[in-house]
């Protein structure tokens, strides 16, 4: 190797190390900071269990409601494929909802959300998803999901926090419900992964 090539190589290596340092200074630390702001797994599972219970439960309730009609004109294979689409969609929406809660826990001060994630995440899940159940029944002649709905929901959620903080039994109910709903994850996650696989294969 010529001396000028060796010099060039050394310069490039130094440059690369410098950029690595810069990246690590800004982003390495940030990544660590962000991960530290996430609640622990033992807190995430119960809240995700609640989300799964409500989102999957809602779809499966409708599925069994419409099944007597479907079996009249669709084969078992077709109904199985439809179930795969349903579970895959539930998986995505439940994960997105969980990510939303995790994002809130990252941006809010720890005392406001992260330190009490099961309680606050659980109450938020119950409040928002049950609110969605009511909203989904809104007649199609209405004005849709307006700013009014959103503001009302936010104010309602804050009120629920404030009021229920003082009520110990409410904390216990939400906590134990969330703990028990972990059991749904044992079924929903493997089933959803299989469903996702089927959906992917059919769309490749």
């Amino acid at each position, binding site marked *: 190797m010529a001396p000028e090539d060796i010099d060039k190589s050394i310069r490039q290596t130094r440059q690369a190390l410098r950029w690595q340092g810069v990246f690590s200074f800004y982003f390495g630390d940030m990544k660590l900071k962000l991960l530290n702001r996430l609640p622990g797994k033992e807190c995430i599972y119960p809240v995700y269990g609640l989300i799964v219970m409500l989102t999957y439960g809602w779809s499966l309730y409708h599925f069994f409601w*419409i099944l007597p009609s479907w079996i*009249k004109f669709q084969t078992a294979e077709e109904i199985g494929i439809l179930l795969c689409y349903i579970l895959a969609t539930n998986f995505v929406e439940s994960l997105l909802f969980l990510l939303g809660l995790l994002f809130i826990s990252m941006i809010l001060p720890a005392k406001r959300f992260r330190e009490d994630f099961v309680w606050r995440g659980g109450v938020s899940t119950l409040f928002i998803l049950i609110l*969605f159940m009511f909203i989904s029944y809104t007649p199609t002649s209405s004005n849709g999901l307006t700013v009014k709905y959103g503001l009302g929901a936010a104010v309602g959620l804050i009120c629920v926090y404030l009021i229920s903080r003082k009520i110990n039994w409410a904390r216990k109910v939400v906590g134990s419900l969330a703990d028990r709903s972990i059991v749904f994850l044992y079924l929903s996650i493997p089933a959803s992964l299989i469903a996702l696989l089927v959906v992917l294969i059919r769309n490749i």
Partner: protein
Amino acid sequence: MNRFGRRDFLKLITTIPAGMVLSKMLPHLGTSNPALPNIIVVVLDALTARNMSLYGYPRRTTPHIERFASRADVYHAHHSAGTFTSSGVASLLTGTYPWSHRVINLKGLIARDRYKRNIFNLLHPLYGSVAFTQNYFADYLLSQMGADIEHHLPISSWSEFELYAADVAHKDRSMKFRAYDDFLYAMDTPTPASLLFGTINKHKKIVFSQKKKEDRLQYYAYELFYNLDSVFSGLASQITDLESPAFCYFHLYPPHGPYLPEGEFLDLFQDGWQPIEKPIHPLPYVESYESLNRKRTQYDQYLAMTDAAFGRFLDGMDRAGLLKNSYLLLTSDHGESFERGYFEHAGPMVYEPSVHVPLLISAPGQTTRRDFYSVTNSVDLLPTLLKISDLETPDWSEGLVLPGFGGEVDNTRLTFSMDAKNASAFGYLTPITIAMYEGNYKLIYYQGYGGENARYHKGLFELYNLKDDPEEMQDLIDDEADISKRLKERLLAAYNAASAPLNQIKGS
């Protein structure tokens, strides 16, 4: 109303860019035998012959279709085999009755071992094909026949549409349509089945539809919005660009509800005319005579508006010289009811307003009118189109070539219309209502209905002579005992042969 004015011309001009874009999407169609004429089938959804002045309705609802009739073959006793879109369209495209193709449920599909038996498949060697429908249940059926259709235009052509079904290029489109549009994001079952995405989507659609309604577009079910003239003009430009021979299936939504007459048509038929009041039927839900008459007037207005748009479409075709080398067929997938307490269609009733539909066929260069009064059925279209193309009718077809195209008038022939939407497509066809036609007689058979109407459970017959009693007011089942007995035997023989579970008559 009859003239093609400056405004109409301007409307037509505005659709030319869309037509040019779409025509580029469509490569020129097959030219295997340029001597063959085009075949263009226009289906207007839920068009009952009973409300058309062409067929003697006292209100002048269809002056432009009458103009078309002056140069066409007009079939006066033509019936749809089904009472709603899926069922009717499947019969039209397969030449078989619902008890054979098994599209008997509102959102049904053709039996999986039979969907290859369709007109696109049979005409494929000779014709290029284009299919377009605004009705997504019909589109769902077209998807099933997708491999046989050369160009399946999306529902969203010349319209605005927010569904998976809007994109015909989607992989696994049929299942996605069923999973998302018809379940997870559905607007009417009774809530969206996806709690988060579905609810958000529902409200997005509500806001979207309110905005579109303000634009005074015709619409259907919060998802499809269009201007009828634009759609017709788009189709006209589409046809202009075709190279012969092509088979086109164009299925437009009007005059299906919601009835949305506009402008001058809103003032039509404020004449106080009232049809005869018929007895309330015990099976369907009941609407009052007054309410039905109000809806009838709106339907008539919307039909007149649809008729005017069809007239402009016809004029465009004529000017382009397309009628000289094309068969043009106008028909409907099913009728519409405004009587006996029953509104709309897809009910358990098969009285004439629900199944008597128009059929007009104009041959290339035809300049005179011919009228045919013998009973025909939508299953006859397939054999007739094959005859036009010098192709053999397959033995599984249940239709016959129409009179005027080589078919003979046979007054002993049986034709059927039926409704079995609450039965299983895979099992015995019950509950079911069947109308059987023989000559002037029409025998109706109800079987398997539960609830309070026990007599409709065991099997109930009604008999009418449509020549003497076109309004079906005089039940002759007891008065004409011999005829009743003979027709009952024929109907039950046909029903028993066709109503067995699908796996027992598989591939038959």
